[in-house]
């Protein structure tokens, strides 16, 4: 009699927990179906507005092999790609825009977790504007022989951005050619 009680309790516990999990998963699948298209649209909008910021005359763009090719009137006017590097506080993601001669048109720091007030200043145009007009070979910090002034007090973050941009440029320019 006692044995039966314990056994049925254990089975009931397993069944109950399984049922709860199944209901939870179904509910989450339903919610995800509703929200997923919205999230995807948002991410595309974000990329589109970032690319338009770099290439104001952009009509359309194409995404293949991790490279955005930007078109105006069906002519290729530039390329863009995401560069990432390890900063002081974590991963830094940068959208790099090049013109058709592979010179930097503009870079935008898309995400970072650097120290607020110090490393986070890499997102400001006073830092990123320096990249405009440079070719890959110039993208080093001034103290390393390049043309980029680091953000005061945030050498590691600044260096991480320069290195990420330069490495991605070398890799992608090769791929496009």
């Amino acid at each position: 009699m006692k044995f039966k009680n314990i056994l049925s309790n254990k089975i009931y516990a397993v069944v109950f927990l399984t049922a709860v999990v199944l209901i939870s998963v179904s509910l989450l699948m339903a919610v995800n179906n509703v929200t997923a298209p919205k999230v995807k649209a948002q991410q595309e909008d974000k990329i589109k507005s970032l690319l338009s910021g770099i290439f104001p005359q952009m009509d359309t763009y194409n995404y293949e092999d991790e490279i955005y090719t930007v078109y105006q009137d069906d002519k290729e006017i530039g390329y863009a790609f995401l560069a990432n590097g390890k900063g002081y506080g974590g991963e830094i993601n940068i959208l790099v825009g090049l013109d058709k001669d592979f010179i930097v048109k503009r870079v935008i720091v898309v995400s970072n977790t650097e120290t607020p007030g110090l490393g986070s200043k890499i997102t400001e145009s006073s830092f990123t504007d320096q990249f405009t007009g440079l070719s890959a070979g110039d993208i080093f910090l001034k103290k390393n022989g390049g043309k980029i002034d680091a953000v005061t007090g945030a050498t590691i973050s600044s260096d991480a951005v320069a290195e990420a941009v330069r490495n991605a440029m070398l890799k992608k320019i090769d791929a496009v050619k």
Partner: protein
Amino acid sequence: MQNEKIGKRFWKEFAKGIIISNPVFILALGLCPTLAVTSSLDNALGMSAGVIFVLLCSNIIISSMRKIIPETVRIPVFIVVIATFVTILSLVFQAYLPPLYESLGIYLALIVVNCIILGRAEAFASKKSVLLSISDALGAGIGFTLALIIISLPREILGTGSLSVVGRILFKLPVLFENPMAIFILPPGAFLVIGLLLALFRWLGVVKNE
């Protein structure tokens, strides 16, 4: 007479969460997300709204199931319920409130292990009626919200020299805006503010000692 009694209990459980058993200042629960999100008023409000939603939903569900939850899998069941609501919240924020979703970052997912929610489920919702569990959740949730607002106001004002609500800048202080005391929006500042506020509460005697 019965309805009057229930009404009185409802308000008692509700009021308890706001001052006497304030989750942050008295129970010292959920301090990790508190420290992290109070760097700005908007983040604090966003997190509070999320916590109230999860707390309410999980208390209601757990309380309605309290008589059929087997003892041995009690905690896993609570956690599955709480995690489900946090995931729903996360998906909804990601789709409809992307800036808030990005500022809260990992702390949104961490609501699952916010001790306030599991604590209320274990100590209250699993034992009391649905109605009382609702008032308990609202009380603790609003108490949490008030605590977060009280902490984030000095942190944002001193740490950035300005105050914004829902993205709109309310005011900027003249000298402080150009030279903000950045320490207040960094972790040490969080500890300082919370520590000082705890001391203030105890000194004012608002807190009833255990």
